């Protein structure tokens, strides 16, 4: 029991930012992301004995992914919210503000620009279809290799590659559109 708790602290706790980031981009909802990560953590805790230390990140993110898809299915079933609903909400704003307060760069103008830009890019990523979104987040934010993404999603590496390429292509187009509107740069 103690060793399990210890393993959880050593291997899983340092990855909670990763888990939350992945859940947050997948679910596009701050409180759902918390629920998903909490559930995933409980699952991870129960099975942490069988985890090899080098694989913790991909292993945890796979559990997060399973939790996300279960949540998504449930939401669809209950028809509580459209999955295409505008993801911008109050929670998200406060998180951005919190994160920015912690930044070392204290120039208010730059913080503001950076926040606006970051929120705009996050919004664009959230607008990607889920299979592209997850590939992109796993690669760009969770730093997984193609092989790890392939194992985690159950896709061949070639599919991972093409999804990543597609995600980046879509993102670049949106970026250019927003830039033309003056939102970015």
């Amino acid at each position: 029991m103690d060793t399990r708790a210890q393993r959880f602290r050593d291997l899983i706790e340092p990855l909670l930012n990763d888990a939350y980031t992945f859940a947050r981009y997948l679910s596009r909802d701050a409180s759902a992301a918390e629920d998903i990560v909490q559930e995933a953590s409980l699952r991870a805790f129960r099975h942490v004995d069988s985890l090899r230390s080098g694989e913790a990140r991909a292993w945890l993110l796979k559990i997060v992914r399973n939790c996300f898809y279960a949540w998504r299915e449930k939401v669809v079933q209950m028809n509580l919210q459209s999955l295409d609903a505008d993801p911008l909400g109050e929670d998200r704003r406060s998180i951005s503000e919190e994160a920015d307060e912690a930044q070392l760069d204290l120039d208010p103008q730059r913080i503001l620009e950076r926040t606006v830009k970051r929120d705009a890019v996050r919004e664009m990523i959230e607008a990607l279809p889920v299979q592209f979104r997850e590939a992109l987040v796993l690669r760009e934010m969770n730093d997984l290799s193609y092989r790890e993404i392939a194992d985690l999603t159950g896709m061949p590496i070639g599919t991972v590659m093409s999804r990543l390429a597609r995600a980046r292509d879509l993102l670049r187009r949106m970026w250019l559109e927003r830039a033309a509107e003056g939102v970015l740069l």
Partner: protein
Amino acid sequence: MNCEEVGRWIGPLLDGELDVRNTAEVQAHLAACPACQRRYEAQAALSSSLRRLDLAYAAPESLRQRIAAALDEPAGAPAHLVSPAKRTPRGVSRWFTLAGWPVALAASAVAASVLLQQRSLESDAIVAAHVRSLLVDHLNDVVSTDHHTVKPWFAGKIDFSPPVPDLSSRGFELVGGRLDYVQRQPVAAVIYRKHGHIINVLAGLPGRGLDKLPQADRVQGYSLRSWRQAGLDLVAVSDIDPLELANLERGYENPPPPAGEPADRR
């Protein structure tokens, strides 16, 4: 390598996923082809912008606390620690709207995990349902100690009527009812309490995830007991003594006549 092939390898090159030989070939092409070079630079700019913006999120402190609180509980006896009434109302509305999804989630997350032994899969899902019901403020959707209130509550919410016997003569106090999901199927949960232990009795139509259970099982300190009754699969799960679950099953199969009806006063 032609431009189309090179275009496919730009992403892997920037991601450091390309092997030495292909890296050399792509770079040679880029050096000689301004159009591909521009594509490469556009992709590189996107990648570095994404990284510079630091788009990851930090897990909120509240989440870390929730996880720590959930895990601090002694493994064998979570029922003691979680009295739904004692919990803060913070998560209630959220869990109310999503009530049940953790169970579907537990079931499918477990099913997808290669780490779990196949044998206890179904039992595990039931225990997960039980534990979640205690942890996340969704123990009861209808709170009532009166089976005349609990039983009709299920009508219209699920396509069968679960038995809700009055088991007070055996010491089981009715707490309430809830809809839940096990193995992606809707089940009716009826909750009893005895000596402070919560007992979830799940009922489902045959083939809805409750039919593959052993008659009695123990998983991580929880006891399960399943039986079939009136065309339904039932399973009781609790951290209570297994003998009490057998007692509860007997109560289900031989319910006392409902109080207040003529048979009672004869």
